[in-house]
């Protein structure tokens, strides 16, 4: 049985990505192994951009595909778009990075493209087994990508840690899927939802949800499953961190939203509440004393996962869950923009072997590289949540959704946390602008590709901070679609 043509359009971004991934794979051996892989990178970038445009075609064909394995709705399109844009930006930024790091492996781009297939599919897959496979695709590719700075022991170590712990966590997720299957007799999220809404909910389903939350909580780096994050982020190549702190995370959040809301998973309210609070506190407190910028941002990403989880528990009695969901979506998007931007700056500034990643290295950056410093400052301010940056509205929507649901205590914890967070982001700014420059840290020109990718991240960050209305409207609508 051959699926109808529209089904292929519904997975068009994935198809495009896969196609270009294969192209990259095939093209790589044709190149002189001692030459830089810039052409391959450009090819991959073209693929990613085409994938971005493919999401528009995808959006024209909402509905189920492949025997109900995939559901294309606004929600899916939103995350497809986010993920593919992340991939495109990261690929573009990687070209110069790979050159400075002297890594000559076209597989890098292939892995990103293939990994993006998984990340994208996470948001549209409604069959739990497909979700599992997509999760593995995105994970395994990032395991490998994390180890790409092969001369550095830290990179391999981070790869190993990510791999072992990631597999450990996916096993939990899989067990959760199995129990869910056992409890409901189905692995289709919407069918599970019907079953759970209609009948008596077996305890098995609760345990299934618990195990899935463990697995997904690990992927989104929420406390107490966050332990891998700082080590992995510190060791992995910066552009890869840019990717994996946003792409798989966005995908995992999408899955989580679908499972918790569309599948009407039971009993998780206080659980997520606690996870949100723990993540915010542990992330922010842990970041306070960090001296490595990558590690610092790793802790910050834990905290941001916490803020995002706040949106999950915004469940007003009126049943208007779409506010919380859309807030989470918006948060994921704006976090992606600012975090990718920040890590791209870090990747550029790190120089060969990422030598310069401590705060001391950032001293006087405002002096020596004013533009780069200014851009990083914008991203950091956005991470703090200063108005007219995406980070502000992200927090704003999340907290406003929570207040709609009368979660005053949670919001207060949240705002206090964001105030604490200001301290460590500010530390970076302080180092950049207020300390004397350190000897021997080189001043480097910003390559075109990196500049362009930074510009994209910057524009998106500002765009989401100045005119967030369209994006949020879209998110609100697609959240409703997702719930239907």
């Amino acid at each position, binding site marked *: 049985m051959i699926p109808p043509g529209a089904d292929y359009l519904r997975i068009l971004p994935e198809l495009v990505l896969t196609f270009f991934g294969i192209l990259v794979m095939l093209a790589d051996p044709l190149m002189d192994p001692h030459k830089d892989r810039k052409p391959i990178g450009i090819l991959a970038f073209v693929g990613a951009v085409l994938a971005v445009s493919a999401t528009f075609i995808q959006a024209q064909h909402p509905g189920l595909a492949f025997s109900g394995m995939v559901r294309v709705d606004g929600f899916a399109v939103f995350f497809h778009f986010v993920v593919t844009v992340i991939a495109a930006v990261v690929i573009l930024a990687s070209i110069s990075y790979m050159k400075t790091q*002297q890594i000559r492996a076209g597989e890098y781009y292939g892995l990103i493209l293939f990994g993006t297939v998984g990340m994208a599919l996470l948001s549209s897959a409604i069959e739990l087994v497909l979700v599992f496979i997509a999760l593995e695709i995105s994970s395994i590719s990032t395991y*490998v990508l994390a180890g790409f700075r092969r001369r550095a022991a830290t990179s391999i170590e981070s790869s190993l840690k990510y791999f072992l712990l990631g597999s450990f966590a996916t096993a939990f997720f899989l067990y959760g899927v199995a129990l869910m299957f056992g409890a409901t007799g189905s692995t289709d999220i919407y069918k599970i939802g019907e079953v759970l809404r209609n009948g008596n909910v077996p305890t098995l389903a609760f345990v299934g949800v618990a195990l899935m939350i463990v697995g997904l909580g690990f992927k989104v780096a929420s406390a107490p499953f966050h332990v891998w994050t700082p080590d992995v982020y510190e060791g992995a190549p910066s552009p890869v961190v840019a990717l994996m702190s946003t792409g798989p995370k966005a995908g995992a959040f999408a899955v989580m939203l679908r499972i918790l809301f569309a599948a009407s998973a039971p009993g998780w309210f206080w659980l997520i509440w606690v996870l949100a609070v723990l993540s915010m506190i542990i992330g922010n407190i842990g970041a306070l004393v960090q001296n490595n910028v990558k590690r610092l941002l790793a802790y910050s990403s834990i905290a941001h996962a916490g803020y995002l989880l706040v949106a999950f528990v915004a469940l007003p009695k009126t049943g208007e869950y779409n506010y919380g969901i859309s807030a989470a979506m918006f948060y994921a998007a704006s976090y992606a923009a600012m975090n990718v931007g920040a890590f791209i700056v870090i990747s550029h500034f790190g120089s060969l072997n990422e030598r310069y990643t401590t705060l001391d290295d950032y001293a006087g950056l405002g002096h020596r590289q004013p533009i780069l410093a200014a851009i990083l400052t914008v991203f950091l301010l956005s991470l703090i949540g200063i108005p007219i940056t995406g980070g502000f509205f992200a927090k704003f929507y999340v907290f406003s959704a929570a207040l709609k649901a009368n979660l005053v205590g949670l919001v207060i914890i949240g705002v206090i946390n964001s105030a604490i967070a200001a301290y460590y982001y500010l530390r970076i700014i302080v180092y950049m602008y207020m300390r004397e420059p350190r000897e021997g840290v080189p001043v480097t020109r910003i390559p075109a590709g990196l500049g362009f990718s930074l510009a994209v991240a910057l524009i998106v960050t500002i765009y989401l901070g100045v005119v967030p209305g369209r994006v949020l409207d879209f998110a609100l609508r697609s959240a409703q679609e997702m719930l239907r």
Partner: protein
Amino acid sequence: MLHYILFFLFAALAVGGAVNLLAQRHPIASALSLIVVMGSLAGEYMLLGAEFVAAVQVIVYAGAIMVLFVFVIMLLNAGEEERSLKGSKVAIAIGVPAMLAGLIMAIWTLTRHNPANTPVGVGAMYGPAIAIADQLFRPFLLAFEITSVLILIAIMGAVVLARKEEQQ
């Protein structure tokens, strides 16, 4: 009755293999224990009627994958584990109790609160190759196709990581 005997035989083998995996200090011994576990699980699958799965379990898992393991163990010439290192206190002190607690809770749930605590007959769900194939290439077509991407990644990843680093 025979079913029970068979079930418990395989179960005992599986659990015994798993425990042995933990107890053995040499990775080769552990790997062999794992093969025992997999084999006995294949027996359980047969008991449940999943004959194709059981066959694949033996061929792919116990065969292919575990060979890979053994191969790598040989390649790296891994010896016995060292045991006298610190840094593992947290793992033992927190992890193992947590694991036990989780296990107890899981068993409790699975036995008491399972709504479908019904007996399952031998071969209750007969899964011949043809039926499985029908599933794979119809409803699960996309999943099946997408695994190819997974495999591609695995190949690329393995190649990249295992490749000798070129000299500068």
